[in-house]
Structures are given as structure tokens and as C-alpha cells.
């Protein structure tokens, strides 16, 4: 130790040596942990038990293990390729050609908030059904696609549009000039014959 002034090193040594002899009461730890337990029970948010997993998953640690897991998943996905020999028949639905989309009038979404349209001359084309308020569903079969109408067909009576319909039907209808701007299907439509 220097005579003029106590050195930094000497002071650090003295403080650390002194501190090594002083420890708090162990009972404090227990009291504090109990207090924390009481307090944490009132927390609205609790710790996310998946936090650790996700933290590990997206960290850089254990990269070889993660790479191995991904490799196994990839391996299974490659091995499980099935060669399906039977061709899948899928109906063409070329909406790119349909420049005039079938217009569903949403302004009259009643009843049941259904889109509506009308077929003004449908009944004529089907003969005597004009006065017959049949409750049967009327089906139109344009080619191999069915467009099913669910309400009674009557002149200018709105019916609910089908929940789904195939655009190719509409394409055919459009080509045949079967749909006019009023969303009606005229009687002379060959599709209704």
C-alpha cells in the first residue's frame, strides 16, 4: 500500500473482502417470495407457457437439432407423394371470357337477404306452368351443368339466386344472348328448351 494514498486495487480488495462476511437474513427471501406469490395471484395477465418454446424455436440455439427436424419433415413429405393415374375431371370455369358478368341484383335483397333476379318468360317456355304456382323447384339443364332455382317461378316474381352457379352456364347464356341487361332469361333461349 502506498504511503501517499490508498490505491484503487487495495480499496477494491478491502471492500470485497469485507462484503464476503455480510449476508442478509434468509427469512427475507421467504417473506419476499410469499409476498410475490400473493401479488402475482392478482395479476390479470399470466405468463405465456408457450413463450419459452417459441423463444427457443425462433432463436439461433440448437440449430443442428432444428435442421434435423425440418429434414425429417421434408423427407416424409417427399416420400408420401402419390401418383394419381386417374385423370381428374375438372369443369372449365373460364371467367376470363366472361366479359359481361351475370348481374345479380343486390338492391332487392329480400326476403332473406338473398340476391334476386327474375326470369320473365321462363314460364312460357315451360308450357302450362304459367298459372300453376308450383312449389316444385325448377331446374334448368344447360348442357351438363345444372342451375337450380329454388323458388316458385312466376312472371316477374323474384326468386332467390342459387347459392352457387357455374359460370360456364352464364357464358353459354351470354353467347346466346340469353341474358339481357335486366337479368332475364327470355323464352326463346335454347337453354330452356
Amino acid at each position, binding site marked *: *500500500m502506498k*504511503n*501517499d*494514498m*490508498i490505491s*484503487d486495487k487495495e*480499496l*477494491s480488495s*478491502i*471492500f*470485497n*473482502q*469485507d*462484503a464476503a*462476511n*455480510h*449476508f*442478509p*437474513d434468509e427469512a*427475507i*427471501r421467504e*417473506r*419476499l*417470495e410469499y*409476498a*410475490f*406469490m400473493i*401479488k*402475482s395471484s392478482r*395479476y390479470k*395477465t*399470466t*405468463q405465456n*407457457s408457450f*413463450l*419459452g*418454446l417459441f*423463444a*427457443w424455436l425462433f432463436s439461433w440455439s440448437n440449430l443442428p437439432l432444428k435442421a434435423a427436424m425440418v429434414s425429417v419433415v421434408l423427407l416424409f413429405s417427399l416420400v408420401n407423394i402419390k401418383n394419381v393415374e386417374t385423370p381428374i375431371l375438372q369443369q372449365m370455369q373460364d371467367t376470363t371470357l366472361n366479359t359481361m358478368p351475370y348481374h345479380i341484383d343486390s338492391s332487392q335483397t329480400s326476403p332473406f337477404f338473398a340476391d334476386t333476379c327474375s326470369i320473365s318468360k321462363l314460364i312460357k317456355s315451360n308450357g302450362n306452368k304459367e298459372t300453376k304456382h308450383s312449389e316444385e323447384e325448377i331446374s334448368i339443364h344447360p348442357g351438363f351443368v345444372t342451375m337450380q332455382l329454388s323458388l316458385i317461378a312466376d312472371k316477374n316474381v323474384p326468386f332467390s339466386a342459387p347459392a352457387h352457379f357455374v359460370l360456364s352456364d352464364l357464358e353459354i347464356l351470354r353467347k346466346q344472348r340469353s341474358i339481357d341487361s335486366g337479368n332475364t332469361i327470355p323464352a326463346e333461349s335454347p337453354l330452356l328448351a
Partner: protein
Amino acid sequence: MIFRKKNIARLTDEELMAAIKNGDQSAFSELYERFNQRLYYYFFRMLGNDKEVANDFLQDLFLKIINKPELFKPGYKFSSWIFTVAHNMCKNEYRNREVRKIVNNDENPDQFLADENSFEETLKKEHLITQLFAEIEYLAEDQKAILLLKYKENFSLKEISEVLELPVGTIKSRLYYARIELTKKLANKSLL
């Protein structure tokens, strides 16, 4: 949970505080483990070498963390913050009682007892330590805090200035004069 328990020791003090805010008891235990002895010693030496008082203050400080963890603002260094709180508690205590007048200068003789087989040199060193801390008690509150933070906690001057809310230049000068004063007093007792 297994990942969390495994990693709790790797978390920084600031991350532990964030976990404590979410009610993570293991984070609190880890934080207490890291700081209890350091803070206890700080209180012990700052508040007249009284074990009971130091224990009380240590408990009060951690109760503050439990009850108001939001007091710690993310972005701050936790060790600086916790010692700032500890120092403010000491200042309040100094105000409440004129501690320098009622300080008991009589050191507990047991606290520096060496092992049975200690050498004479060790005894001399311990006597020096006893006298040094007896003299430290006469230093000003800030000087005492500076010595503790500098030589026990190894805080930088900048960190000490943050804890004590004083300019770095002031810290430097007070540290210098504290060392001069200690040296003089120990020299007068023929310990240097």
C-alpha cells in the same frame, strides 16, 4: 416451461424485470439471488453498520419491486436503477434520523474475526479493514456511497453519477477527497 426454466439464468436483469411484471416468480427469485447480497452490503455500510436496518431496507426495496415493478422503465440499466432506489432510501433515512450523530462507531468485533488458523498478517489486514470502515462512517453520505459503488460494485464514474444524480466531475473530486481523507486518518493511526 422447461425451456423457460432452463433459460431463466441466462436472462439479463432487464429481461428478468420484464418477466416479473408478468408475474414470473422464478424471475423474481433469480433477480433476488443476483442482488440481495450486494444491496444488503450497501445498506449495511450506508446505514451505520446495522444488520437489522440493512435487512429491513433490503426487504423494503424488494417489496417496492414486487408492488410497483412498473417503476423500472425499460431502457434503463437495472443495476444502476436499483442502486439509485437504494441510495434514495438511504437519503430518506438520513433525513429521518440524523444518522451521523447516532452512528455507533463500535464495530461488532465478531464481524471481522478470522478463521482459527489465521495468520498475524490476516489479523493486521482485518484490523485495517475495521479501522477503515470506522473512518468511512465519518465521511459524507455521498462520499461513502461513491466509495461503495466504485470499489464494491465496480460501477463506472458515469454509472455512479447516474445513481447519485451528480455530475461526473463532482463524483471524481469527491472520490479523490474521500481517499485523501481516509489515507490521512489511517496514517494518523499508524495503519499505513
